[in-house]
């Protein structure tokens, strides 16, 4: 079997890459992609812990299900907002949306 | 263990012994066997399309008062082969500034996604991958087919192709909802998501228990395949063939094959989920018989699809979306709730008793829906008569969802 740490380290790397994407990208959709990577890393963590530590319980799986649902809700609202922003600003690049100072 | 009762096991065992005899390890042999099985299924599925193309052209031809292909071979049976040779020899053209890797990946992705569905279809009793979430899996890999179309539309660097990609997203994501909801009805009735399990649970075909779910599943699937009357993604008269406008040669052929294969796969899934799959007299004793039953059932569903294709005109995009969100989805939800509640109440009934009660309720819901649809139709006609003011030439109204407009402010 695969050692537990392997999964966790891959998840940590995935999360860090996502974090880098969120902080370094300018386009809003690209930022949201980074967030998705981060949420996926969390899900790997949750399911790994479920599998290795308590496969007979359901807490990890239930947590993961909730994360899936939240991610879907977040993305749908996010993309809808981006489209609304695009209608007003003709761009969704964060640097160019600055009616108010950051 | 005879050839008739366990044909596939027999072949597999023979191959396994052959490989082991060559000195291969146990693990490698298993991998090789899976690989061979996958290649056989995929090739057969794709080869089968050759016949489907001939069949569909012939049927649609008849429906349109033509004869259809009739020059090459008896009844034009060899026509697809002639086409095949022609298309293979054609050049593959890449549009200027096309996104080349994606342009090539797109058709392959689409075809591969559809072949992947075949991995979980229980072709005969006790054979086939018994995957415990197979029903969801069929939806999941379907997503890659959608992706293939979007990629094709985007990478072609062509505005019509792009419009087609947009339409694809809207249409396929929308129709996935009623598809899944309708698919959940047999899952719920059988109490399992394994397709093999669903087939085994169908002592009474689920088309008896859930005829409306079958209808919804069929309509929504046709929309997901993007065939008439839902062929907005390739509508020749509007966006001149849509996403595959720039494709030629083998790449085009892959799309073409993928389209037909998808249609037949939908028939296959419909047969598995609602028509009892391989079930039929003698199927358990002679699995090959089960394969034939399944094939016939799938063919019947497929034929209905062709029939619809030959009969109905294309929908407008607003009609298509309204139909999905305001009609199919609520109805599918109602049916899902019906299946859950009624099935709970009928615990302990005989299969046929259970089936008939479900059928009666389905018929009742169906009658209500038809009555509602009639009333809705009449009201619309009253509110927005097609004929314009006197003296004006009657024109078709541009797409304007009246209900939505009234709501917006």
């Amino acid at each position, binding site marked *: 079997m695969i050692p537990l740490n392997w999964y966790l380290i891959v998840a940590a790397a995935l999360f860090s890459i996502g974090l880098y994407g969120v902080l370094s990208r300018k386009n809003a959709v690209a930022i949201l992609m980074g*967030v998705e990577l981060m949420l996926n890393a969390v899900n790997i963590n949750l399911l790994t812990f479920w599998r290795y530590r308590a496969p007979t319980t359901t807490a990890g799986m239930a947590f993961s299900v909730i994360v899936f649902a939240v991610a879907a809700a977040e993305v749908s609202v996010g993309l809808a907002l981006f489209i609304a922003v695009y209608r007003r600003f003709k761009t969704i690049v964060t640097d160019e949306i600055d*009616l108010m100072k950051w | 263990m005879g050839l008739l009762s366990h044909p596939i096991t027999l072949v597999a065992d023979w191959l396994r012994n052959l490989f082991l005899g060559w000195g291969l390890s146990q693990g490698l042999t298993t991998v090789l066997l899976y690989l061979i099985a996958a290649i056989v299924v995929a090739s057969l599925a794709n080869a089968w399309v050759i016949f489907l193309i001939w069949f569909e052209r012939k049927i649609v031809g008849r429906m349109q008062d033509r004869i259809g292909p009739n020059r090459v071979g008896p009844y034009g049976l060899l026509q697809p082969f002639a086409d095949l040779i022609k298309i293979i020899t054609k050049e593959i053209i890449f549009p200027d500034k096309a996104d080349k890797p994606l342009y090539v990946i797109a058709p392959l992705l689409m075809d591969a996604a559809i072949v992947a569905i075949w991995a979980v279809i229980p072709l005969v009793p006790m054979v086939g991958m018994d995957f415990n979430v197979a029903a969801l899996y069929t939806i999941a890999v379907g997503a890659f087919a959608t992706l293939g179309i979007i990629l094709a539309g985007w990478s072609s660097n062509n505005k019509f192709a792009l419009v087609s990609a947009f339409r694809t997203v809207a249409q396929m994501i929308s129709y996935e909802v009623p598809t899944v909801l309708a698919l959940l009805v047999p899952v719920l009735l059988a109490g399992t998501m394994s397709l093999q399990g669903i087939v085994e649970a169908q002592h009474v075909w689920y088309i008896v228990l859930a005829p409306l779910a079958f209808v919804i599943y069929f309509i929504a699937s046709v929309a997901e395949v993007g065939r008439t009357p839902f062929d907005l993604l390739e509508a020749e008269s509007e966006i001149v063939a849509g996403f595959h406008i720039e494709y030629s040669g083998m790449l085009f052929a892959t799309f073409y094959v993928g389209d037909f294969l998808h249609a037949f796969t939908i028939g296959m899934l419909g047969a598995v989920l609602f028509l009892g799959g391989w079930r039929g007299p003698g199927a358990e004793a002679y699995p090959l018989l089960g394969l034939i039953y399944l094939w016939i059932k799938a063919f019947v569903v497929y034929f209905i699809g062709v029939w619809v294709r030959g009969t109905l005109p294309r929908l407008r995009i607003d009609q298509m979306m309204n139909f999905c969100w305001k009609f199919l989805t609520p109805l599918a939800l109602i049916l899902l709730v019906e299946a859950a509640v009624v099935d709970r109440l009928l615990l302990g009934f005989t299969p046929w008793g259970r089936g008939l009660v479900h059928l009666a309720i389905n018929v009742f819901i169906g009658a209500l829906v038809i009555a509602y649809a009639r009333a809705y139709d009449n009201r619309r006609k009253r509110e927005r008569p097609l004929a314009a003011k006197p003296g004006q030439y009657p024109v078709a109204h541009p797409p304007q969802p009246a209900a939505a407009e009234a709501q917006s402010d």
Partner: protein
Amino acid sequence: MSGINTADMLAILPEILILLVAAAVLVVDLFERGKHPRLLGWIAAGGLTLSIAVSIAYAMPPDKGQIVWGGMLRYDWLGFVFQMVFMLGAAATALFAMDIEHLGERGEFYILLLASTLGMTLMASAADLIMLYLAIETTSIPMYVLAGFIHPDRRSVESGFKYLLFGAMSSAVMLYGFSLLYGFTGETSLAALATAVTHLSLPVVLGIIVLILVGFGFKTSVVPFHFWAPDVYEGAPTPVTGFLSTASKAAGFAVLVRVLLTAFGGSYMPYWGAILAAISVVTMTLGNTFAIAQKDIKRMLAYSSIAHAGYMLIGVVALSALGIAGVVFYLGVYLLSNITAFGVVAMVERADGTTGIADYSGLSKRAPWLALALMVALLSLSGTPPFGGFVGKVWLFGAAVSKNLTWLAIIGVLNSVVAMYYYLVVLKVAYFDPPAKPERVPVSASYTVGLTVLAAAVLLVGIAFAPWYSWAAKAAAVLFGM
């Protein structure tokens, strides 16, 4: 399968009532759309007020607190007090929103407001990481839309956009912390975590706390997770800003104190206490410093709300029942005062179309009662007796002094003095400067009701504070097992 008992149902009575109000709004919106523009607002505000009354009458929790719904929620005073505060805030927001163009006549607004309130009430009572995360997101996601609700206004859309980007990121970091917490201990319930985390080494626990604090810090808008706040507060529709800066922040504090004190109590307290003390000092100072320079009243109130988060952290840092009671009490007062202030701002904005501080000149002549409400609100925020804010500050700083954190209390007092300055500037402009325009500012019925009740409440809480304080004390006692 075991059934559901009475405590289970009573524990979620507020949530059920909120959902019923939301259902009523949905149905009425469906059939009466556009006929009575203010009807939806009255339904939402009235329904929430009624819900508060019903909850207080029937759903008072037991003093000891009780775990319900299989450990998902905790039925106790801490949750209950916060739930009442959130519902009050939502009711006031509905009152103030119903006259705003593009906002008050839309059923979606009230649905999202109620969904967000539902999330907050669950945040206050969540006793499990799964429930907690979901509740936080249920609060945030509708709030993103609310902040960007007024489409024709570019600033509003921009506000929602920024709020979403920061919110999504910080909640993902927090969630990662939760996942590690679950993985390292194998537990998701806060009570079980309390014992399970003691098996972990200190740096690991502190690392997890830092990850979690990113999310909580975002919700409570403390430094260094504050920089979304001014932009979002400025751009969002004014009633939404009022709600966002009060109820949402209060919800953040509710989970902050519950999670930190329940799951990381005991020997870990001093460590995160020190982190929070540092954050508190920086937050207060930075919030007040920036607030002075603002020309726009919404932005000014945004920075002031950052500063208030700093004051409230003092109470958390005190790590005593007195401190937490102070936080709860202060949050209640702050919610009343700040929503009143934003109510006035919304009214003036509706009449004049601006939110610049200079445009408030002569407000006392143009709308004496409005100016009075503004005065009550701002004086309470600045901590002047006899208003509620004063009492709250006394308790917060007193708690710090009683735990030998006098230096922190002194910084808090100094900051309050600085804050007094910019609040008084606004009042000076409103009362002593000549009117910018001759016309009176029209005040509609809903505002009259809302502002009267809220301003009276601010005064009442400041004078007769004992009953309210006893509620706050009961809430705090839950965390300290008294």
